[in-house]
C-alpha cells in the first residue's frame, strides 16, 4: 500500500510539467490569496507591535479618572505633587520621584505623501525625561532646551511629516518652534510624536496643568502598592495603569478592524481560489485518465490514487502559499505607513510580516488545496477502469 502510494505520487509529479498551465492556476490563485491575507494582517501586526513595544512594566501612567486617553485627561499641579509623594516610586539621589508630568496636545502638520494636514501629537515632557525614559536617544542634532520654543521630532514622524528635519522651523500658534533634534525610542509610539518642554507647551496653548504623569516605579512589583495609594486617596480621582496596558488598549480597536477586513477579504478570495483549484485538479484528473486507469488495472488501490491526487493539490497549494507569503514579505515587510491611532493623532508604524503570519498564510493555502483537491481525487479513485482505458 505504501509502495503503491509512493509510486502513484511520483508518477503524478513526473507528469506535472505536461499540465503546467492548469497547475499554475492553483499556484497563482493561492499565492494571490495568501499575499493579500498576509499583507493586510501585517498591517495589524505592525500597528500592534508599535503600541505593544511602548512603555515598560515598571512604568505607570496616571490620568484623571474616567478620561480613557491622555488627550482628554487633565491633572492639576497639586495632583502631580500628591502623585510624586506616593509610595513605590523610583527616587533619585535627592529623593525626588522619577516622574515626568506631561501635557499632550495635537497639532496639524502637512504629511509628505498627501500634502494635506494631519494630526501629530505634541508632548510636553518634564525635565526628568532622561531618567523616566532612558530608551529615548537623540540620534540627530541635540536635546531641546527648556523655556525656549524648541522641540525634538520622533524618527517616525520625521519620515512622514514635512519640515521635521534638524534646524527647520515650525509655526505653531503665533510662535516659531525650532526642531533641534530627531530621537528614537525603540520604535515605540513616541517616535510618531514631537517632544518639547512641558511648561513651554503649556504657555503656548494657554493651559495650566497637565494631561498625565508618567512615573518610574522602584520595581514592576511596586505597581500594586503605588496604585492602591493613589486610588484610595480621597483627594485624587485618577486612573493608574501600567504603561504597556495603557498602550495595548489603544491598539485594540484598530487591530481588530484591520484583522476583520483582512480575514473577510481573504475568505472571499479563498472561495474563488478553491473553485480555481477544483477546475485545475478536475482537468488534471481528466488529462491523466489513461494513466490512472492503467494504474488501477495493474492493481493499484483506490486509496493510493485518491491520495496521490490530494497530495499533488496540496504540494501545488503549498508552493502557492510560500510564493504568496514571500511576495508579501518582499513588498511590504518594513514598509512604513501611518494612520490615525487611538489618541486622535498619527501613529507611524511598519508593516510586520511575522513568522506567525507566514504560518497562518501557508495553513490557509493548505486548506484551500485540500478542499480543491478532494472532489477531483474522489473522481480519480472512482474512475471506471474499463471505460477509461477504452476511451483512450
Amino acid at each position: 500500500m505504501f509502495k503503491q502510494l509512493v509510486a502513484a505520487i511520483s508518477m503524478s509529479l513526473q507528469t506535472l510539467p505536461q499540465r503546467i498551465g492548469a497547475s499554475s492556476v492553483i499556484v497563482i490563485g493561492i499565492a494571490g490569496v495568501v499575499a493579500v491575507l498576509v499583507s493586510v494582517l501585517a498591517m495589524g501586526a505592525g500597528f500592534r507591535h508599535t503600541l505593544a513595544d511602548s512603555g515598560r512594566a515598571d512604568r505607570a501612567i496616571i490620568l484623571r479618572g474616567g478620561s480613557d486617553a491622555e488627550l482628554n485627561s487633565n491633572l492639576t499641579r497639586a495632583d502631580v505633587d500628591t502623585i510624586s509623594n506616593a509610595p513605590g516610586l523610583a527616587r533619585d539621589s535627592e529623593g525626588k520621584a522619577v516622574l515626568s508630568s506631561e501635557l499632550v496636545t495635537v497639532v496639524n502638520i502637512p504629511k509628505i505623501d498627501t500634502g494635506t494636514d494631519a494630526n501629530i501629537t505634541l508632548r510636553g515632557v518634564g525635565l526628568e525625561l532622561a531618567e523616566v525614559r532612558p530608551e529615548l536617544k537623540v540620534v540627530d542634532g541635540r536635546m531641546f532646551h527648556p523655556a525656549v520654543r524648541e522641540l525634538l521630532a520622533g524618527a517616525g514622524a520625521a519620515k512622514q511629516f514635512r519640515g521635521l528635519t534638524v534646524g527647520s522651523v515650525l509655526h505653531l500658534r503665533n510662535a516659531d518652534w525650532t526642531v533641534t533634534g530627531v530621537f528614537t525610542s525603540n520604535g515605540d509610539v513616541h517616535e510618531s510624536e514631537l517632544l518639547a518642554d512641558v511648561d513651554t507647551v503649556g504657555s503656548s496653548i494657554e493651559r495650566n496643568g497637565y494631561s498625565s504623569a508618567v512615573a518610574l516605579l522602584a520595581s514592576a512589583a511596586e505597581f500594586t502598592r503605588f496604585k492602591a495609594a493613589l486610588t484610595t486617596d480621597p483627594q485624587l480621582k485618577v486612573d493608574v495603569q501600567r504603561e504597556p496596558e495603557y498602550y495595548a488598549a489603544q491598539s485594540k480597536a484598530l487591530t481588530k478592524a484591520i484583522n476583520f477586513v483582512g480575514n473577510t477579504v481573504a475568505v472571499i478570495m479563498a472561495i474563488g481560489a478553491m473553485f480555481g483549484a477544483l477546475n485545475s485538479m478536475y482537468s488534471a484528473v481528466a488529462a491523466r485518465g489513461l494513466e490512472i486507469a492503467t494504474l488501477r488495472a495493474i492493481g493499484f488501490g483506490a486509496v493510493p490514487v485518491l491520495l496521490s491526487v490530494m497530495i499533488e493539490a496540496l504540494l501545488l497549494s503549498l508552493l502557492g502559499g510560500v510564493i504568496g507569503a514571500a511576495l508579501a514579505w518582499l513588498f511590504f515587510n518594513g514598509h512604513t505607513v501611518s494612520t490615525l491611532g487611538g489618541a486622535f493623532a498619527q501613529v507611524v508604524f511598519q508593516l510586520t510580516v511575522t513568522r506567525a503570519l507566514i504560518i497562518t498564510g501557508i495553513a490557509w493555502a493548505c486548506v484551500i488545496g485540500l478542499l480543491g483537491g478532494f472532489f477531483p481525487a474522489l473522481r480519480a479513485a472512482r474512475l471506471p477502469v474499463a471505460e477509461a482505458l477504452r476511451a483512450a
Partner: protein
Amino acid sequence: MKYFPLIWASLWRKKTRTIFTLLSMVVAFLLFGVLETVDYAFAHPSGGATGADKLITTNKYSITLSLPFSDTQEIRAVPGVAEVTWISWFGAYYQESKNFVFALPVDTDSYFNLHKDEFIVSGEQMQAYRNTRSGALVNSALMKKFGWTVGDKVPLHSTIWTQKKDGSLDWTFDIVGTFDAKDPTQAGQQASTLLFHYDLFDEGRSFGKGSVGWFEERIADPSQSGAISGRIDALFANSPNETKTQPAKDFALAFMKQLGDIGFVLRAILGAVFFTLLFLTGNTMMQSVRERTPELAVLKTIGFGDGKVLGLVIGESLLLCVIAAVIGLGLSYAALPIIKLGLQGVELSPKALLPGIGAAVLLALIVGLPPALRAGRLNIVDALADKR
C-alpha cells in the same frame, strides 16, 4: 446575434469547468463591487452636513484647541454667511467605552436653521426639546441600539468635561424626542448622534467656559466658498486663535485621508484579485479552444471566415466574463446594506459598481484574444489532422 446559440452552446461544452470558472469569477466580481463601493464612499463624502453650502471653521493649529465664543458675531457679519453655529466635542459614551455616542452640544436655533434640511423631528417633540433644559434629541437608530424610549433619563460619560457642581464626568439627559435623517443616504452619518443644549453644557462644565470646539457656517452661494473662507480666516489672522475655514466636505476628506491611503490598499487587493483571475480565466479559455480545435476547423470548412471564428471565441469569452460580472456585482449590490452597518458615516453609492462592467469587458478581451487569434489563424488541414 444569430450566432448567440452557437456561442452559448460552446460556452457550456464542458459544464463543470464553466461552472467552476464562473463561480470563481463571480466571487472576484463580488469583491470588486464591495471594495469599489467602499473606495468610492471614502473618496466622495457628500450631502447633508458635508453639502457644498457648508463650511467648517476650526483652530488653525489643532482641532483639539478651542476658539472663543465671541468669534460668532464677527463670523455672522461676514458677507455671504447665511448662518453660523457653534459646537464642541463632548467625547461621550454610554456605560462602557465601546458604546460610543456622538453627543453634541448645539445651539438650538442656529443649529437647526443651519441643518434645516437634514433632520425629521416632529413639531411637538421639537417644542418639548426647547422647553426642557436637560433635554436631548436622539437618533432613532441610537434609541433602538440602547433600548431607550422617550421619557428616559440617560447618563452619558464624557471623557473630557467635568461638571462644575460635583466634578463628575457623568452627565444626565432627558430624552424628549427622536429624529431621523431626511435624506436616507445620511442615515449612517447620523446613526450615533445625540443633540443637547449648548447652554446646559457651557454653564455646567467646570472649565473652558465661553470657548467652542468649532464653528459651522452655511453660505448662500456655494461657488463663493473659497472667498468666504478667506474672509473668515482674515478676521482672526495674527490673533492667538487663528482659524482655518474650509468646505465641510474637504474637512471630511482630510479626516479620511488621515486614516491612511485606503484607496491604495483597496486597489492593491483588487490588483491581486484580477491578476489571479486573469490566469484562471485565461487558462480556461485556452484549454477550451485547444480541445475544440477540430470543431473550429469544421466551422471553417463549412465557410466560416477567419474573422468570424475569431469573433466567436471572443464572444464566448465576453459572455463568460459579463455573466460573472453581472452576478458578482449584483451580489455586492445586495450586500450594500450589510456593509453600511459596518461602515457608519459613509454613504454607499451603486455608482461605484459601473466600472465593474468595464473591467469585465477588459478582462474578456485580454483572456479571449490569444485563443481567438489562435483560432482565427487555424489552418484547416493541420487542425483536422490533429487527432487530439
